[in-house]
């Protein structure tokens, strides 16, 4: 039940390049707000001998907006994201999601990049050393059995970041810096469906920025949780929708808190041209229920999380249609 961190060394680079160079050694981890990493280190589920503190890397903290699009540095704190006028004007759903994360104290230090790279969570994993040891560890940490699905081969820990589903439905791309240089890719490619290793970042790679389109006004995010703050989503749903002459032009649904990765629901392009009526809402409901794969990673029933996700998706689609 140790609460004290073992000795660690901390490096404070000033540039992205320096940070990437420092992170090449084993046991090094990037540290942004620390609201996820340090908690996990105290619990002994994440180990790092060397932390690369990104607080001094100014290049990670810029927000630039023009007619072609918006670029947000991965080091931008959630509180700043919420207060940013252009962001709230162009992307109200980002503000809704960011404001639903944890509590004001956390949001002052927690960052966009940190939320996108949040470790996956599970009731058998986010526990003390004593607890996990008494439970024979688990597939994600030191053990060989997933207590959620003991017959299976994979870890089912759930991704619980609130911002990812919003950025997915907005069609965001990310920029990654690493030993081999920079690369840019759709946000969806950051994730794979594996609770033990859900990020596709190679060792030493750093998420540096998120590229957004110029506008994403017709989108919304809603989160289902047991209490109004300091609670990860049991289900989080983002919807982006554009309408043309009372018919759907495009509809995208993003989910979090359910699978091991944030999920862009597949098959919604088939809704183009349809009116938002009961049949459409039922179809959205079915699609979400079909693709969401919550398992017993939380104490709340998995079945509930699926139903709640579908209910919220229906509601957001109706709301964005002006109904």
């Amino acid at each position, binding site marked *: *039940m*140790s*609460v*004290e961190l*073992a000795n660690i060394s901390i490096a404070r680079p000033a540039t992205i390049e320096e940070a990437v160079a420092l992170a090449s050694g084993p046991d090094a981890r990037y540290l942004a707000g620390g609201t996820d990493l340090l908690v996990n280190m105290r619990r002994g589920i994440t180990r790092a001998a060397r932390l690369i503190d990104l607080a001094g890397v100014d290049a990670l903290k810029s927000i630039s907006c023009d007619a072609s699009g918006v670029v947000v540095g991965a080091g931008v704190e959630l509180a700043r994201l919420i207060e940013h006028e252009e962001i709230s004007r162009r992307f109200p759903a980002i503000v809704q999601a960011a404001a639903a994360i944890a*509590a004001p104290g956390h949001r002052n230090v927690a960052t966009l990049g940190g939320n996108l790279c949040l470790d996956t969570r599970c*009731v*058998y994993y*986010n*526990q*003390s050393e*004593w*607890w996990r*040891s*008494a*439970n024979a560890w688990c597939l994600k940490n030191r053990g060989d059995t997933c*207590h959620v699905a003991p017959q299976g081969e994979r870890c089912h820990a759930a991704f619980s970041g609130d911002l990812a589903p919003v950025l997915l439905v907005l069609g965001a791309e990310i920029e990654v810096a690493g030993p081999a240089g920079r690369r840019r890719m759709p946000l969806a490619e950051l994730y794979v469906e594996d609770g033990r290793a859900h990020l596709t970042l190679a060792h030493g790679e750093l998420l540096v920025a998120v590229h957004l389109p110029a506008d994403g006004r017709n989108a919304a995010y809603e989160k*289902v949780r*047991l*209490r*109004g*703050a*300091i*609670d990860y989503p*049991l289900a989080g749903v983002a919807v982006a929708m554009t309408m043309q002459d009372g018919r759907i032009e495009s509809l995208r649904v993003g989910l979090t808190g359910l699978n091991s990765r944030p999920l862009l629901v597949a098959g919604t392009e088939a809704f183009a041209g349809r009116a938002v009526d009961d049949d459409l809402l039922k179809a959205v409901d079915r699609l979400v229920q079909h693709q969401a794969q919550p398992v017993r990673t939380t*104490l*709340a*029933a998995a079945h*509930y999380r699926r*139903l*709640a996700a579908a*209910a*919220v998706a*229906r*509601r957001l689609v109706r709301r964005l249609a002006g109904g």
Partner: protein
Amino acid sequence: MSAVYKARTGRQGVPLIDGVDKVTGRALYTADLDRNGALVGRILRSPVAHAEIVRIDVSKACALDGVAAIVTGADCRFTYGVLPIAMNEYPLARERVRYRGEPVAAVAAIDEETAQRALDLIEIEFKELPAYFESKDARAPDAVLLHDKKPGNIEREVHHDFGDLDAGFAAADLVREHRVTCAEINHAQIEPHACLAEFDPVSGRLTVQDVSQVVYYLHLTLARCLELDEAQIRVIKPFVGGGFGARVEVLNFEIVTALLARAAGGKVFMQLTREETFLTHRARPQTDIALRLGMTKDGRFTACACVVTQRGGAYAGYGVVTILYAGALLQGIYDIPAIKYDGYRVYANLPPCGAMRGHGGVNTRFAFETLVDRMARELGLDPFAVRRANLLQAPMQTMNGLMVQSYGLAECLDAVERASGWKERFGRMPPGKGLGMACSHYVSGSAKPIHFTGEPHAVIHLKLDHDGGVTALTGAADIGQGSSTMVAIAVAETLGVGLDRIRVVSSDTAVTPKDNGAYSSRITFMVGNAAIAAANNLKALLTAAAARTLDAAVEEIVCEGGYFRVGDMGQAALSFKEVVAAALVDEGAISVKGAFTCPVEFQGGKHRGGAVGSTMGFSYAAQVVETSVDDATGQVTVDKVWVALDCGHAINPLAVAGQIEGSVWMGMGQALCEETRYLNGLAAHASFLDYRMPTIVESPQIEAFVVESHDPNGPFGAKEASEGALAGFPPALVSAIGNATGVDLHEIPATPDRLLEAIGKSRLKAAAAARKARAAS
């Protein structure tokens, strides 16, 4: 006639006398004390739920550099427990462990890292036994017994039968029964458990500074478990960051820290992690209740039969008292002609439960008030009207021997009915919104103490010296509820001086007189009366000194506003300090005391267990909760609460308002989102992330009203104010949810998953009924 007024706009009251110290960070809590030279204590806990301890080998840990002491069950052969009749727990397990997290060994080392390494080096061999995590499994005929001589794993069965039950049910126009389940909850006080113990090997004296609410019991237990003379022990309570019952019995880590300090011959500091603080537990048990009520068509209760099963955890603790309270507190609030109660306190392989704010009464009140509401609906009666049809008339004695001397429930009902606009709004709420109401009550201290010694229930010492300051010495533990401020006000008002003349020193067994502690809301009633008695004794000495100086008869002296004068003759007055100077001549510093004892006729019925529930005065509360329910996700929002509490007299209205809001809020936590959860006996809730207390986001506006029924025996007419309003919240909320959705929940907390499931079932049922109706037509 009781005065009804809004706590916030009526008499103001005073901020707590230690409030500034707390909000400025000057106040020192146990973890803030001088730890210079202290070793770090850590506990090794059982990873298994139920097992025989075959072998413990500490030799490798002992050999580790920096380890000063290691203790195991072998170092303490004495059991402890808050009830003299049920001491069945060792501070460190001997021979058997009964829950995951039970202390097995402990280490004192030079630093935390070394202590942890030492724990890792301790080898324990267990032989596992079957473990039971639910009452029904523990009660199964073939279940292994957790404790000898406790067949069926039942710690205590209670069977109480008052009045003619059969006649009562026969006289009813409507008889209904329902079963409810209340999840186990925890106090979740903000300050984690901590203890600083110092043993002086030369003098053989032990000094313990600790988070306890029951300094006297800790003193007694340390003497017992360490085989020390009580005179060798001093226990001090620094500032405490919340209790709510978590520290109302002696806890294993307190004894363990003292054992380590003695073994190391020095000072040991132990601070439990949040997880360990949760594992220490002692809170409200998971409870199953089957309740049957009889009601006439005009809403009169005719009979009540109640079966309560509490899953008490692995050891006795307060269990016997909790299971007795659950039945006893069916009485003393309404006029019910017949009540039958059957209670079962069950052992299970989980952390032991104990006392928690509203001790024993909360879950039964939930079952009772929700059933009353549902029956009222069936009979087409207003929920307020049903409560009013069953009010008591004070003074009276209940069937189980409880005395009701003052009773302001009718005024409480009036206050919240009016303020909430109930008459205009109930039944006319927009879709998804609902109103619900409930009543509750609580004791102002248990009239029969746990340890019978023949001593008074409370003693206060007052010291007056040359400076003209009065120091009140009290053992009463201020744990944030404001008891020291209450003592200061009681003394100041009796002496007719300002609060700035009073100092309060509390909870140091070398200095303050013994006090049983902060529990069962006993302090205001008992210690308050003792403080008034002590102040009157001091006032008599001062009046005599004033009479001597002014050359007047004692009975002519009037004392008010800090001055003593002869009648109202306009003669020169003596200031308080002048009178003090006169009183000190030939005497020197003055010490007086005051005491308070609950008369025997208040100490409960003659039946077995009849002392539990007995009190000098009950507080009463009524509340209305307004809620919104999202029927797509099952999420519940508490929009507003109106609550009225009859506390007899508000000695400090500001503190009373705070306590009312606090009780409502704590009731809200239990009703809405708080619960402990175990995975094969492992606590999966043991952090503030997973144990979901409400945050400020879901905290509603609470409009609090104080009703003053002027109890004939209370200090200035006061009764308790800290617990009475809690038990009404869960039923009021669940009834409001029913009002909003048409769905009757039978479980708390009303989490979205539970509610959505209940809504789904209710829709299926309605659809089936509709199909049946169509088929029939």
